[in-house]
């Protein structure tokens, strides 16, 4: 199995530095080769009815946190908003 490192990295929003690329590619190929070995079991995945979850009651609890508390870790904030590079031209 040959995996397209560049394509996968793009999907994952990762960039592998050029000097590390060769080793990285080799490691990835051997990891994929390792996990590749799985038996073919002629079964389908089914939904587990026994594993049902309890749903939450529709009750709103406002003002649990202040905006400042929630934004305290953000790298860039302006006018109460998170700031990112422009998304439209």
């Amino acid at each position, binding site marked *: 199995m040959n995996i397209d490192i560049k394509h996968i990295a793009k999907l994952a929003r990762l960039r592998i530095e050029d000097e590390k690329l060769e080793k990285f590619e080799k490691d990835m190929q051997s990891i994929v080769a390792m996990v590749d070995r799985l038996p073919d079991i002629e079964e389908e995945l089914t939904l587990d009815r026994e*594993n049902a979850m309890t749903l939450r009651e529709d009750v709103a609890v406002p003002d649990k946190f202040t905006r400042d508390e929630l934004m305290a870790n953000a790298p860039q904030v302006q006018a109460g908003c998170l700031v990112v590079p422009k998304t439209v031209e």
Partner: protein
Amino acid sequence: MKDYEIVIGLEVHAELNTESKIYCNCRNAFGLEVNTQVCPVCMGMPGTLPTLNEKVVDYAIKMGHAMNCKINSVCKQDRKNYFYPDLPKAYQISQAEVPLCENGYLDIMVDGVEKRIGVTRIHIEEDAGKLLHDDSFSGSLVDLNRCGVPLIEIVSEPDIRSSAEAKAYLDTIKSILQYINISDCKMQEGSIRCDVNVSVREKGSDKFGTRCEMKNVNSFSGAVRGIEYEAKRQIEVLESGGTVIQETRRWDDAKGMSFTMRTKEDAQDYRYFPEPDLLTIVVDEERIQKLKESIPELPNRKISRYVKEHGLSQVDATLIAESIDKSKLYDECTAMKKCSPKNVCNWILSDISKFTNDTGKSILDTALTAENLVKLICEVEKGTISNSSAKKVFDIIIKDDKDPVKLIEELGLAQNSDEGFLEELAKDILSKNEKSVSDYKNGKTNALGYLVGQCMKASKGKANPGKVKEIVTRMLSE
């Protein structure tokens, strides 16, 4: 030019009007100060987990019933992975393989003809936040208040064949959402949005053409414009010998044009997989049945019934059916089977609507009862009172629950329809107005109106004008 057929499929996203968000207990509210309706969960903070709001499941099932779907009592949620600043977890919790509802249909009416549109599926998912762009700043701003607002996505089969059908389909969905009260349907707030899939093919062909998906359609009228633009564009491509490329396009309503967003080659790979933070959704049959029973007769059914059984026009039927209050009153009145449904319809769409518009009240807030309205209409139909007198009675019964029959008597509004009395009256008037009689006989037909008017005047308005006219006409021709 060849004869083309347009093939349309719609994906409608509707925000549900629950109290709290879909996966956390933040308020589900619109238009508040940026980033104030958020918490660690909907902000996607490390370590937080989703918990599914039961109302979202109920509402989606209700919509499933309203659209005649099969309800999957056992289903799950999946993650749709993609990076964008309005999606804090970098995945949207949605449903991929097994939606809550599937294989339904919706009957719509276009130009008085009923048409059935297949509904592929209805699933639940979370809304994303909003990006704000300001020229004064070099970046984009992110407001996460809308993150986690519950959505249902309704996917239609490619059964729609014109922009008019698309509009009717969308209007019908909107009226149902309002009827079963699961969405506010405020277009300007973006609470209903749709993606449009359009393809064209030669008429008679049984193969679908290559489709384009149009995003960013924020109004129903925008959908109509977008479909028409896109169909025209595709036909032009085909007519000039080209081929339509499968792609996602962005509709720009202001420019009235669509633009390529991405082609099939760089289609996104969402890497769907089952959401491991949530277990199986299991809804018991009893609950599904109870939700089914909670669905009232829906507007599209009503329209069809009003047109077919009551002989209303599609326009009038729609105006009545799409309002919960109006159709309730209409249905109560017509169920008594005492007066003509058309008359009921006319009263509702004219005087009653005028009153509610002027006062800002809903019909339910007025004193008007179906019983009183029917009594009033019957009196008019019998000719007991004139239309103008009826309006006087109406002005009272919409404010007070009083018996119209008694009111007519108390106010002395009853018309005299007695043949003998009216003949005496007419004889008297004709004898006093020989000039007009001879004018009439010489072909001046407007003399008739004058003579009838004189009769009415002499009776102090009590004479039944229809009858008077009938008798005077007969006497003049004798």
